[in-house]
């Protein structure tokens, strides 16, 4: 890799990945939020932040996830600087966004990129729940839509990792419109023969579940991920009763016919490589 631009890009990716691994370590080491058992940070790095005792998949940042998936040196970010206006003039929104950009190193709640898996190129959109709970406003909708369009124009398969609390309240109705925009872009992509693999991670809810996350040709989920339209608290308030154990978890969705497979984080790269191979050269768009 002699190209200085590529080198710089890789260094930036490394820096962001390093920062996120520190964050993930802090969150996951000490004691597991699910089973309470302690794990060394070196072990967590090896397990990709999955608790070796109980299998709990701890949340990880978008760049870190991409570093686990992509062939090294193949990461190329697209649409990095896309930001949305404060169209509702929502009080405090601008300041909170700025603060989150500083603390997370993210520009928005989704990172979009191209990269290769075992040499097979694909377009990726990876959401990050540290940024406004991964909510979808205009910038997220635009970045996802451009990722779809990029995949269609370049006849590449599309892989989206969702992690979202739903629509971004601070951007109001324009957030809602992103559901139509992303779904319409995916419908076109699908009509053109494009392959879309949707990977659902904890948590995927609201407007993201009710739009692009549910439109995959193949739908995968990480074990234990909460996936649903309405949040559990809202449902409990509506029906006035406690929800059963395991409700809206990946295993529940699989049982109800909404997932192809649940894939542990350690096997995801391998599974995605297999799926790209199975869709062969036609894994982008026809013609």
């Amino acid at each position: 890799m002699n190209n200085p631009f590529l080198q710089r890009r890789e260094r930036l990716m490394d820096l962001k990945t390093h920062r996120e691994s520190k964050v993930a370590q802090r969150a996951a080491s000490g004691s597991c939020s699910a089973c309470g058992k302690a794990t060394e940070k070196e072990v967590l790095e090896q397990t990709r932040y999955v608790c070796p005792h109980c299998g709990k998949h701890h949340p990880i940042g978008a760049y870190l996830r991409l570093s686990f998936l992509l062939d090294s040196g193949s990461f190329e970010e697209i649409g990095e600087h896309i930001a949305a206006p404060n169209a509702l003039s929502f009080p405090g929104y601008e300041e909170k966004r700025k603060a989150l950009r500083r603390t997370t190193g993210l520009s928005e709640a989704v990172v979009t990129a191209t990269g290769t898996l075992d040499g097979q190129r694909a377009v990726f959109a990876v959401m990050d729940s540290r940024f406004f709970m991964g909510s979808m406003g205009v910038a997220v909708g635009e970045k996802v839509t451009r990722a779809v369009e990029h995949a269609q124009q370049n006849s590449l398969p599309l892989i989206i990792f969702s992690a979202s609390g739903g629509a971004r309240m601070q951007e109001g109705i324009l957030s809602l419109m992103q559901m139509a925009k992303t779904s319409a872009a995916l419908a076109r992509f699908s009509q053109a023969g494009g392959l879309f693999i949707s990977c659902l991670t904890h948590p995927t809810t609201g407007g993201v579940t009710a739009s692009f996350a549910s439109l995959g040709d193949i739908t995968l989920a990480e074990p234990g991920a909460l996936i649903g339209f309405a949040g559990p608290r809202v449902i409990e308030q509506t029906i006035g009763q406690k929800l059963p154990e395991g409700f809206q978890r990946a295993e529940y969705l699989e049982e109800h016919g909404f997932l192809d497979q649940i894939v542990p984080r350690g096997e995801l790269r391998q599974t995605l490589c297999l799926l790209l191979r199975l869709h062969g050269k036609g894994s982008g768009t026809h013609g």
Partner: protein
Amino acid sequence: MAERTAAQRVALARHSARPGVCEFIQALFTDFFEQKGDRLYGEDGSILGGIALYHGRPVTVIGHHKGRDLNENLTCNFGMPHPEGYRKVQRLLRQAEKFSRPVITFVDTPGAYPGLEAEARGQGEAIASTLALMSTLNVPCVSIITGEGGSGGALALAVANHVLMLENAVYSVLSPEGFASILWKDASRSEEAAELMKLTADDLLALKVIDEIIPEPEGGAHTDPQFVYQAVDKAVSVHLAKLLKEGDCAARRYQKFRAMGKINSSGKETL
């Protein structure tokens, strides 16, 4: 247009005597044939749909159905669809495409139902696939937001070439109560939320989320429904004729929604 606060419009949009999909079908269409069921699970009374003649032309007409009295409200689940409601919509949309019938939808729902069974049957998938399907239809689609346009449950019937909105209707990402409860953990601040959310017809026209406002009588739609039927009929017939003449409905509809919250390539926002 009458001067009103956003919260006052929310109240009018929810008024129990406000004309609903049944009244609009009776007033604007003839020979309505209702089509029930999704052919997968069941019938959902919160969505009313079928074939009818609109000025002599066969169209597919679909709307959220809240019901007039408590009994009807219960059958209609207060206009909050389950997944089978959205799958019925999809069945009707596919037939509209097959038989080249324009689609006219009436939107009036607090939102998709947030319940245990709705989740078990895939509420998210049902809405997502309805959005995707409606975006690809080659026939003209006109939507009228007549009352409450609540969240994804409303949007699923409103991916239209032309979106009209009654003067006192509201359309939002979530109910003002839900919005206040998420952001401030206090549902009682709903009036404040309503003002902030830009959910009135005026606000939405400025944001280009809707295309046209249909005026209501001074006291609201329920005080003189005939006035409203005539205004809706006039607007729908004009736009339907225009869409039929222009053609290329899927591509035009795509461009319309592609431009929602458009950001140019330098990353600077353009709204």
